[in-house]
């Protein structure tokens, strides 16, 4: 399989070279040569060569952990490379800080927005910028300039609004304007669509095409094949820190890209039998709850999760999913409403009692709430039920180790020993550890929040199969995911959440991406 992959790479590269010859008029704006970056435990970039033509939209494709963000952070001056050189706009450059990169004409919109929440959009855009009246803030001048940019590219923002009150989509637009304001020649967007609804994504793509027409160069980092194919001119694929090929978008397809990205033939088609779901396991009745900032996050949620089904919850993050997860697990206070678990009112139960009743959870934030990083793997595997692993009041490490060895084997957790600290495991193995712990305690209900985020394709496949077989055993799964494809593939029923309310529930057969997309972004379906 590996050989198939590399043959393909070289042939693709050859064909690319040929077409490149025909397009000599394409001026290179960026050349990164032999870029190497080594982090303490991983080689993030391994002699990467990367070239971008002026005025193109260039996709940077790769799985999570392939080194895309690292490569771009080096270009943006956030990280110093351990080797290699960068030629930008005709000259060799060496950036010691993002300030240098900005001066040279490079802008970056990070995956986690770099905005000051307590400032207005305009102040964020102006951050660090010297207006004509510097050091005074020349708002009048700035506003005119921003409004012009906003009109040119069709990027709308309320400039006087505080960032904290903005939707993620709007925050992203502030980020883009922030870069454009500095007259960048090259704009890097890191996974820009992961927080957007399908409609917002369309708008973003329109703006990107507009930028390209105006002569701006765009690097679009993504792991979504469809998006890369839709919006880019060329695509460079990274795999495990190496450049495995640069392709012309219109000459390639999803299958080839996936093969390059993963390095083998992939087809994530998971067999899912249609079946009747059983009686309700969890009934959520008119639940209201607040978020960490004390604002209403859940506004009257009604939902029933049934035995033997996977109930998928679709929605853009920040619409109450995290709060709902916490309300079910018992770590967030309910303002109003009831939770009925197997006919029992558990609204006022603490976490421990709910765990004992058979509620398990794969939390969204794995490192923060899913595990204790400094404890060993075997200790992490008994976190929920440690009481059962005691003898005369002391921990019985013989049994604990046996228990761990069994799970490590069954769930394929790669670890040198059950006795090493859990934080030394890779992200995928931490996820396996959590799944092993949560499923092995034989729960009745599993709340799985973003269970495949950050995993490689093999890991995703594994987790999805596990969830399905778990539901087939007659258990109930509440699957919270931002990945619509995942929701469509795994769920028996799909609920759409928007601003703390369930906006619609579909059976798998009647659900389609368009309908869900409209509800996700707050629209209404016409009857």
């Amino acid at each position: 399989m590996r050989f198939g992959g590399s043959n393909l790479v070289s042939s693709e590269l050859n064909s690319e070279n040929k077409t490149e010859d025909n397009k000599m008029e394409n001026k290179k704006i960026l050349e990164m040569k032999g870029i190497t970056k080594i982090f303490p435990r991983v080689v993030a970039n391994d002699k990467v060569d990367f070239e971008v033509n002026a005025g193109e939209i260039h996709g940077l494709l790769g799985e999570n952990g392939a080194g895309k963000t690292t490569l771009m952070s080096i270009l943006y001056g956030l990280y110093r490379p351990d080797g290699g050189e960068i030629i930008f706009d005709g000259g060799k450059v060496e950036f010691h800080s993002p300030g240098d990169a900005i001066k040279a004409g490079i802008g970056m919109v990070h995956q986690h927005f770099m905005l000051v929440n307590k400032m207005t959009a305009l102040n964020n855009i102006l951050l660090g910028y010297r207006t004509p009246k510097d050091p005074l803030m020349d708002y009048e001048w700035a506003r005119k300039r921003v409004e012009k940019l906003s009109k040119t590219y069709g990027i709308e923002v309320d400039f006087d609004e505080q960032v904290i009150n903005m939707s993620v989509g709007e925050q992203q637009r502030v980020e883009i304007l922030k870069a454009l304001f500095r007259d960048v020649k090259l704009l890097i967007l890191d996974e820009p669509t992961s927080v957007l609804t399908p409609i917002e994504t369309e708008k973003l793509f329109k703006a990107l095409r507009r930028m390209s027409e105006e002569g701006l160069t765009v690097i679009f980092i993504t792991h979504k094949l469809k998006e890369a194919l839709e919006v880019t001119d060329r695509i460079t694929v990274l795999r495990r820190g190496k450049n495995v090929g640069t392709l012309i978008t219109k000459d390639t397809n999803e299958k080839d890209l996936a093969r390059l990205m993963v390095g083998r033939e992939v087809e994530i088609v998971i067999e899912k039998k249609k079946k009747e779901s059983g009686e309700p396991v969890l009934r959520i009745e008119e639940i209201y709850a607040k978020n960490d900032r004390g604002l209403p996050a859940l506004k009257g949620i009604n939902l029933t999760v049934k035995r033997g089904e996977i109930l998928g919850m679709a929605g853009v993050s920040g619409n109450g999913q995290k709060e709902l997860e916490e309300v079910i697990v018992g770590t967030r206070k309910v303002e109003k409403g009831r939770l009925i678990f197997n006919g029992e009112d558990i609204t006022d139960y603490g976490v421990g009692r709910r765990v004992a009743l058979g509620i398990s959870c794969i939390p969204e934030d794995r490192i923060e709430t899913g595990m204790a990083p400094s404890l060993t793997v075997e200790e992490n595997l008994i976190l929920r039920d440690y009481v059962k692993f005691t003898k005369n009041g002391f921990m019985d490490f013989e049994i604990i180790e046996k228990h761990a060895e069994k799970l490590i084997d069954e769930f394929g957790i790669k670890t040198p020993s059950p006795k090493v600290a859990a934080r030394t495991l890779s992200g995928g193995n931490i996820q396996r550890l959590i799944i092993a712990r949560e499923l092995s305690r034989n729960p009745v209900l599993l709340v799985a929040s973003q269970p495949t985020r950050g995993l490689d394709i093999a890991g995703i496949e594994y987790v999805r199969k596990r969830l399905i077989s778990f539901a087939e055993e007659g258990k109930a799964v509440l699957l919270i995911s931002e990945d619509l494809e995942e929701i469509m593939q795994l769920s028996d029923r799909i609920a759409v959440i928007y601003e703390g309310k369930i906006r619609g529930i579909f059976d798998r057969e009647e659900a389609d991406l368009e309908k869900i997309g409209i509800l996700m972004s707050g629209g209404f379906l016409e009857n």
Partner: protein
Amino acid sequence: MIEAEFLASLIAASMRAGTPLLFATLGEIIAERSGVLNLGLEGVMVSGAMTGFYISLVTGNPWLGVLAGGIAGLLLALIHAFFTVSLKVDQAVTGLMLVLLGLGLTGFLGRDLVGQVATYIQPINIPILSSIPYGNAIFNQDPVVYVGIFLVPLLWFLMNKTRYGMELFAVGENPEAADTMGIPVDRIRFLAVLIGGFLAGIGGAHLSLAYAKVWTDGLTAGRGWICLALVIFSGWMPQRAIFGAYLFGGLDVLSFKLQAVGLGVSYHFMRMIPYIFTILVLLFSVIREREKFGAPSALGKPYIREQKF
């Protein structure tokens, strides 16, 4: 008539007593706005107080004393900045070390200063204004008091209307965001801590050279801690700090004045008033949420760029 006179002298004394607090509070606001908490304020102030007193005693020039006090505060702040900003050491630990260092060092070096008489800062009478009713209270102060008052609008302007203020705010709220826009996070934090130390040092010098007019071991008597509470009380805004500082100055003075009037309440109880108030302020600010109160989001957190892996 006695009451009016009492009130006028109370206002005057409150301003004088509040000025050391005002300087230190303004300085700490700048430092904290950049995201660096300096718990060592007590140590910084007391160093300024002793150094200022000593230099004035030796040179006979109280202004050199004030300047020296500021520099002493700056030097102590330099230690804090080096450890917390350059070496990313825990800010609370370094701050507490500074308290012990400041109090210990001044106690040791200042042994011979106890009981000495230095040249003090004299009030300046502003001609016409001081002759209006109560004017004598407000316009017959020493220059440091006036500088303190003038600093408030100056800092307000710098913090709210200029790029420097925006950058200071951004560095304290979201250093990563500031860094990605090319703002030198560490340099700004370093500077903010130094400025904070300088102002606190001047505050200390004013305490020994204009208010207490004497050096005793541990002269600041917890004023540094009160200033830390005042920063919270003022919501990290200079324009509010002045009210807080004068209010606490007033409480300090009141505890003396009421004794003089002979209220029959224990001296020790009166001396407790400012500290009890401090506790109330802290309690009040905990009840109102920190965020709404304007605490910098990155306060107390060292910023390390490549800490991801």
